[in-house]
């Protein structure tokens, strides 16, 4: 039955994460963007909220909570409101942990999940993106060739968050090129596996506080038990839908941050004797931003609710992501515009949000709820 209301539990979770995002993440966002580093205490605090350990079963030391894409989207939005780069950093371990949790074999779950239930942050990541213009999830160039009991991986990855800090990486490669989503598998690799090399930290336009790296695979040989889900394999399409929902949700939070900042500025800033927000040119821009944020959020929730019903939500999450990526640019650009020349100055956060928004299309499905 149609309902737009958060459950009581979701409201509680949202309030907790929202307070953390506003009080802790937001003040750290600009310095982190400038320095490219996130204070370890902040990362530790985020970890203690149980953002990663939440749905890991109790017998593996986790909290045994229920995993819900809608709740995950609500959390991701709040974190994204704080800062996209910091959100991506603190959630990066999920890229490995939740993929194993949902799609891994019992053995893989037993082997890898426990390490994410300790008291301090454990970095982990996934190598998904590739450095070519026509990068396409349904046609990965990185390949995994079967060779007896092993797989041999070759390819080049980019935009791998925390690759250098992580002991294990989930590397996506095509086992059956041409089969689209169905031809892709994930492989769980130690970072020091032979043939796997992490390159220098990447320099990106935005999301600068998030350390990302290139990863090259040259005849990297792994056992068949490294394949996510073993012989049953993982549902790559669903993993990517979860990723698109999560990224979109973070983007909605960021859009909301930019909108609120521009709105408050426009109510303060005077021109021709009145606040600029009293001029239709600015007021309508803000109204449009508000509408787009609500539209985007509802699309994300709708896609997430399909995931929660066990569907792979490929179409819904894809359309939502594309919509959100476009409207995030529009909204953050409007925020810069509303501030005029001041928006261009790094003393205000709006230019940072515009740079961050541009990164959404470069990350595709690289996140998870």
């Amino acid at each position: 039955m149609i309902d737009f209301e958060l459950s009581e539990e979701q409201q509680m979770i949202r309030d907790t994460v929202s307070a953390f995002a506003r009080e802790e993440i937001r003040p750290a966002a600009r310095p982190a963007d400038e320095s490219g580093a996130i204070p370890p205490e902040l990362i530790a605090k985020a970890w203690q909220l149980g953002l990663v350990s939440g749905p890991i079963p109790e017998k593996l030391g986790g909290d045994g909570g229920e995993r819900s894409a809608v709740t995950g989207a609500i959390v991701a939005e709040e974190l994204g409101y704080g800062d996209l780069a910091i959100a991506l950093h603190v959630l990066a371990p999920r890229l490995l942990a939740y993929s194993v949790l949902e799609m891994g074999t019992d053995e893989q779950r037993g082997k890898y999940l426990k390490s994410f239930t300790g008291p301090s942050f454990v970095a982990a990541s996934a190598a998904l993106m590739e450095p070519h213009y026509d990068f396409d999830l349904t046609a990965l160039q990185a390949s995994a060739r079967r060779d007896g009991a092993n797989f041999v991986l070759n390819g080049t990855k980019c935009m791998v968050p925390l690759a250098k800090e992580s002991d294990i990486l989930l590397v996506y490669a095509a086992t059956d090129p041409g089969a689209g989503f169905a031809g892709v598998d994930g492989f769980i690799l130690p970072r020091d596996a032979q043939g796997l090399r992490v390159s220098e930290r990447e320099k990106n336009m935005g999301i600068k506080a998030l350390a990302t790296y290139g990863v090259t695979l040259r005849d990297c040989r792994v056992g068949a038990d490294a394949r996510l889900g073993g012989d049953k394999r993982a549902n790559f399409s669903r993993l990517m839908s979860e990723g698109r929902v999560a990224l979109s949700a973070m983007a909605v939070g960021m859009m909301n941050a930019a909108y609120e900042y521009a709105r408050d500025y426009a109510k303060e800033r005077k021109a021709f004797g009145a606040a600029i927000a009293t001029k239709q040119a600015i007021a309508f821009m803000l109204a449009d931003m508000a509408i787009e944020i609500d539209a985007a959020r509802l699309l994300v929730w709708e896609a997430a609710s399909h995931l929660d019903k066990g569907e792979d939500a490929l179409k819904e999450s894809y359309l939502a992501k594309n919509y959100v990526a476009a409207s995030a640019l529009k909204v953050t650009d409007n925020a810069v515009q509303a501030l005029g020349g001041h928006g261009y100055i790094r003393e205000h956060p709006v230019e940072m949000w515009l740079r961050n928004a541009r990164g959404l299309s470069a990350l595709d499905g690289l996140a998870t709820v």
Partner: protein
Amino acid sequence: MIDFELEPQVVSRLKMYRVVAEQMMRPISRECDEHEHQKPTQFYETMWSASAMAEFTTPTDGAGSKADGAKAADRGPRLRNLYTVLSTEELCWGDAGLFLSTPNSGLGGAAVMAAGTAEQKERFLARFKSGKPKWGAMAITEPGCGSDSAAVTTTATREGDNWVINGTKIFCTAGEMAAEKSEGFVVVWATVDKSAGRAGIKPFVVDHNTPGMTVTRVENKLGIRASDTAAIVFDNCRVPLDHILGSPEVNREGGFKDVMATFDATRPIVAAMAIGVGRAALDFVADFLKEQNVAIRYGISPRKLTAIERDFMEMEVQLKATRLLTWRAAWMLDLGKRNNLEASMAKAKAGLVVTQITQKAVELLGPLGYSRTYLVEKWMRDAKINDIFEGTQQINMLIVARRILNYSSKELN
């Protein structure tokens, strides 16, 4: 808990509307467009006799549930506004002009439900439950004021046991049917006290064929030609005292509450109308592309999409976003939440999006889209009205802007 799934009984009910849209509206859609002002009487009769349906579709029911929540729950589904929005989309997928011309209490009924007392609702709306087909209409726009509805110049003066109404109203949907061609009524908004500004504007029920009420003109329009749009002159038109909806007291604080309450209820419905028309165009394009073996590849890199795929997906997701905003606005009303902001958000976006979608549909089909052989060009013409009536896109943006900025109409105008 957040959920977007319709219950099975709602889905099956919507299928009934789909049948009406497919079998009763689409076959006469083109004819009614080509022969404006010609009345599809058989369609009226059938729609009227399907009274169970009528109850489910009239805006009246939707507008009522806020004031009338408990009773509404007894009569039918709990989320009445939401279901009105759902059925409206289905029927406007059939034909928006015919939807507007369907005999029911219409916007007049919505005004009665929003502004009338319980006794008035019973007295004025009972007629829609039996007898011959009837129409209700609402007259607010004047030659000198459209969006600026507070500038109404039509007057209502108290003389003995009557209100005497004088003025000219235009753009009154189903006005001719309500005023002269059925036993319906017109709700006319007139000022009882010019010095009170917006607060002095009150709604009056004028029964069909009341002396002094004359339909002077039925407009020729770009689209929704199956629906008549009338100009009505009120010349010393007398109505009984108890035909003023709600209280005759001028509450200078309350302002324009009744008009706004009416719009809060009807804007989601208009948004749903737009969505129905937009979906008609989208479905047509989808079928056409399928026939041409053009696949829409969801999930691949956006950089690999063809221009047609991009256009199609954009149409699809914009329509969906609009639908979700519209559902939310209606759902809020059902829960008794104030939805003024959300209703205007939905309406502003719906008008714009569906205007764009239907224009794009014509473009994507090339010469076929432009041809009157198909209905796509008609849907483009029909769609545009949703960007205009019940508050233009710009007026709704203004309302959204005022609400998000917490500005009064004086501060932001």
